[in-house]
Each structure stands twice: as structure tokens, then as C-alpha cells.
């Protein structure tokens, strides 16, 4: 028996969130005795990169190298994972919550008759039955969920587990998937992705700006600060609504939910809808000239002051320290 982990990759690199899923599976197996951790990678990616998945806790990586799978074709990926599940005789699939992972997991759940639990924040409690703690109400609460099926899929929220890095390289085995034309009935005609930048949903540090920055021309200092910190940039909903920043940077209830170690909010008042997107952050810093801004109540550290004055100074202080 094994635990199967569906891993994603982009631009030749396995995603960090997928490595976290591998580490989660590794810890889960130590707890439940479900055997070794087998990762599944789909599409074109280097063998060395796959072997390195072992460091996070996998003993084997199945690689279906069919290049049609490199793009995230939802139906085809769900079929491929179901076939791998069958092959390794798994009872549990672990994956990282993501745009593609969510879409694939839902179809997979029906295919393999498994309960799917999403936004999982810690290892299941198996002392009596099988209970999984997950984040609900956009991070404003948790629910303990009782799983009653034999097969299970756990979609892991970012930072649910410490990333393991001390494992040895995994054996990479090629894996033949049989796919029907209907699996590729939909076509991805183009992909637009910000390249070379830190991706917001996976970033360890996020610097966000709000309407307090007065206009898109002032985002230079946000980007400078993000560059110093190796951070991703985000923004509030009004800022993406008026088109100062692209929609994929919108952090909040109806935008991207982030869970970085450090979230720095600049010129954002802290409406409850914005807070819903950041409340899983480990540490929140708020810079706002209004001492009454509600965001300060949700912050760990704060500076009351004009962003145009504080941010460049902070950037210099960070450069001196880092």
C-alpha cells in the first residue's frame, strides 16, 4: 500500500506547495502506516527535478511523460491520477490546493469513490474514525470533518506542514497512462503567466498595496520592497477593480487567499473582505497613515505613517539588514 501524491510543476520546477503535499503524505504515512509515498508527475519535466521530490519525503515518483499532459488539461489529469491510484493500490491521495489541483481532485473524487476534504490544515485525527480539520469561512473558522469512505483525497492548505528536506532522492519510474480523445476534448489555446516573478498564492512573503497609494504610477516602491524581500506583490479589491493592478494580484475574500510567513499591507484599510484573504498569514505588518484603520486590529506590527515616507525608509533598512 502507498499514499499517492499528485504533484504540479511549472517552467520545469516542481511547485513548492506540491512538495509540501509530499511532506504531509510522509507524516501521514508515519501516523497511519499506509506505506511509502509515491508521487505522480504528468507531462514534460526533468528527471533530476523529479528525483529531488524524494527530499520532501517520497520514495518513488511515477512519471507519465506524455507531452499532452504538460498543460493542465483537467479531464486528462483526473484520468491519469485515477489510473495511478489503481496501480499503486492507494487508499489516500494527497495534493496541494491550487487552481488546477482543486479542479482535478473534484473529478477524481467521483472516479475513485473517495471523500474529498479541501483546505486541510493538519494531519487527520485517526484515534476514533477519521477526522480532518479544515479551514472554512475563508479562514475565519475551522471545521472538523468526519470522513466515512474508505478512499480519501486530502487537498492541503499552504503551510499546513513543515517542508521536509532531508529525504534521499526518489526512484523515478515511467508510467504509461491510457488516455481517450475525450480526455482532451477541451483545448488550452494560450497561457498568460507572469514569468520570473514570485507567484502570489505560493509566496512566503507578500507585499500588498491599496488605494492609499493613490495611483498605479506609485507601485514602484511596492515592487522595490518586494524585490528586496523576494516577495510577491498583491493588492486590495478596489485597486484591481479600477484596473491599477491585474486581477490575479487581488488578495481577499473573492480573490487570492494567501498564507505567507509575512504579509505587509501598505495603504490598505483592512475591510473584512480583504482580511479574509490574509488571515492565514503567520505575521502581518500594516503601514497606514490612519491610526483608526481596522487593519491594525488584525496586525502583529504596525507603523502609523505616510506610506510614501515610510516604505522607502523601510526598504533601505531592510537592505542594510538582509
Amino acid at each position, binding site marked *: 500500500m502507498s499514499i499517492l501524491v499528485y504533484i504540479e510543476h*511549472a517552467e520545469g520546477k516542481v511547485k513548492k506547495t506540491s512538495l509540501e503535499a509530499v511532506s504531509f503524505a510522509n507524516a501521514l504515512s508515519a501516523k497511519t502506516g499506509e506505506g511509502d509515498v509515491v508521487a505522480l508527475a504528468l507531462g514534460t519535466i526533468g528527471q533530476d527535478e523529479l528525483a529531488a521530490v524524494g527530499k520532501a519525503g517520497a520514495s518513488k515518483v511515477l512519471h507519465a511523460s506524455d507531452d499532452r499532459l504538460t498543460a*493542465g488539461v*483537467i*479531464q486528462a489529469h483526473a484520468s491519469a491520477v485515477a489510473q495511478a491510484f489503481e496501480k499503486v493500490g492507494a487508499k489516500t491521495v494527497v495534493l496541494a490546493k491550487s*487552481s488546477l489541483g*482543486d*479542479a482535478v481532485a*473534484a*473529478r477524481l473524487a*467521483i472516479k475513485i469513490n*473517495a*471523500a*474529498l476534504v*479541501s*483546505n486541510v490544515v493538519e494531519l487527520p485525527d485517526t484515534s476514533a474514525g477519521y477526522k*480532518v480539520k479544515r479551514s*472554512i*469561512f*475563508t479562514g475565519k*473558522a475551522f*471545521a*472538523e*470533518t*468526519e*470522513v*466515512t*469512505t474508505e478512499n480519501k483525497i486530502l487537498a492541503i492548505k499552504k503551510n499546513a506542514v513543515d517542508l521536509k528536506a532531508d529525504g534521499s532522492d526518489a526512484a523515478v519510474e515511467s508510467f504509461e497512462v491510457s488516455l481517450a480523445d475525450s480526455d482532451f*476534448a477541451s*483545448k488550452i*489555446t*494560450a*497561457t*498568460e*503567466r507572469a514569468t520570473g*516573478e514570485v507567484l502570489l*498564492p505560493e509566496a512566503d*512573503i507578500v507585499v500588498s498595496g491599496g488605494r492609499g497609494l493613490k495611483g498605479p504610477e506609485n507601485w514602484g516602491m511596492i515592487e522595490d520592497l518586494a524585490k528586496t524581500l523576494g516577495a510577491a506583490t498583491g493588492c486590495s479589491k478596489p485597486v484591481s477593480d479600477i484596473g491599477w493592478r491585474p*486581477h*490575479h494580484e487581488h488578495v481577499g475574500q*473573492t480573490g487570492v487567499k494567501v498564507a505567507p*510567513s*509575512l504579509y505587509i499591507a501598505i495603504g490598505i484599510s483592512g475591510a*473584512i*473582505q480583504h482580511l*479574509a484573504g490574509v488571515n492565514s498569514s503567520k*505575521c502581518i*505588518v500594516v503601514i497606514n497613515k490612519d491610526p483608526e484603520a481596522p487593519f491594525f*486590529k488584525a496586525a*502583529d*506590527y*504596525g*507603523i*502609523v505613517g505616510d506610506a510614501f*515616507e*515610510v516604505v522607502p*525608509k*523601510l526598504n533601505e*533598512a*531592510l537592505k542594510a*539588514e538582509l
Partner: protein
Amino acid sequence: MNILVCITHVPDTTSKIQFTDNNTKFDSTGVQFIIGPYDDYALARAVELRDQTGGKLTVLNVGLAESDPTLRKALAIGADEAIRVNSEPKDSFFVAKQIAHYAKEGGYDLILMGRESIDFNGGMVHGMVGELLGMPSFSPVMKLDVEGTTVKMAREIEGGKEMLEASLPLIAGCQEPIAEWKIPNMRGIMSARTKPLNVVNPVTDETQAVATQYQLPPAKGAVKLVDKDHVEELVKLLKNEAKVL
């Protein structure tokens, strides 16, 4: 084109989240319920598509009688008829099974819903329904145009988007900016009263993952303020105290 839009009946985004009965039930005291914001985008786009191509727009909710005002609002926004599956939405699998059954019965060309509900944030019902019906499913979809039987979509991915083409029938989990939310006008509100709202029975009781106990996150301590003229203090705190640098 006949369109089905599945909507959730959820607490308003500004609601204070609390639980009752020994943390086993959501406390709805003083809470206002709304159409899920993502579902609202799906509905708005469906109204536009129905107006372009003709056909019928049906809204569906799995819920008890308290969902009726939410369904009436969807009718006021522009849906032609409503179906309520008379049961608590026990878990995603349960809801997907109900939707799949009634969707099959209705023979819809396009099924839209929000990318996720804002209460349980599962984001899985569209994919489950797709697999149950053998239809392709896409989420989160931020643009959707129909040309004949071809559907052109944009799906959000981490740090960008991908453009997709597929054929009807299909299912999409929607999010902004697929359409602007529509506010019902007086004519819509008046006509909603007489549009059909059919209450039907659940087709199965099967569940797989039911929430049994709730918990609030631990309260946050007070913010530590740093003087704006001594930002280096903040750097030290982040490094030595919070240990996040």
C-alpha cells in the same frame, strides 16, 4: 440555450462567524444571508447569455425553506424559474448528487455556479457534477463566451490565466470578472413573485465528509506599533521576535 445556475445561500461576507450548540452548529443570529458572491457572478453572466441566445435560465439551490428569499432574488435578477432541493446541503458530494440528478432531468446546455461557496470553500461541486454527468468542467472561469456550440473561456491559474476552448454541454465554476453583479430592478422584483419556484425532494441521502465540530481561530494579540521615524526597529522585530526574515 438552456442554462442552469446553481446558487448557494450563505452568510453575507461581513458576517461575524460564530457557532452554537456546543460548537456543532453555525449561529445565524443576526446574520444576513445572500446569494454566494461567486454564484452571483455566474448568475449575472447567465442572464447575459440567455438574453443573447434565448432559451430558459433555471436557478437551483440545495437548501431548506430559508433559501426561498435567495432564490426569489435570483428570479428578480433575471432567472426564469427556480428549483429548490428540499434538504440541508450536508456535504459537497451530497449537493453534487442532487444537482447531477436534476441537471440530467433538465437537459441543460450549460451549467454555471460559483468557483466555491464562501462558507465551506470546498470548490469541488462543479467538478463532481461534471464527472457524474460525463461533462467537462472548468474552474475558476473568469471569462466565458458562447459561439454556436463552442465555448471560449479564460481560467485563472497561479499568476495568470489560460485560454480554453470546449464544446457545449459543459460546467463552469465562475469568478470575477466574468460579468458585473446585477441588482434587481422593481420590475424584476415584481415579476419574481409569480415565477415558478419548484420544491423537489433529495434523490439520495449519501454523504462522505460531514462537518461535525467547529472552532474559531485563537484571538489575535494587540498590535505592536513602531514609530515611523524608527523603521529599523520593525526590521529587528521581524528578524528576532517574529523570525520571519
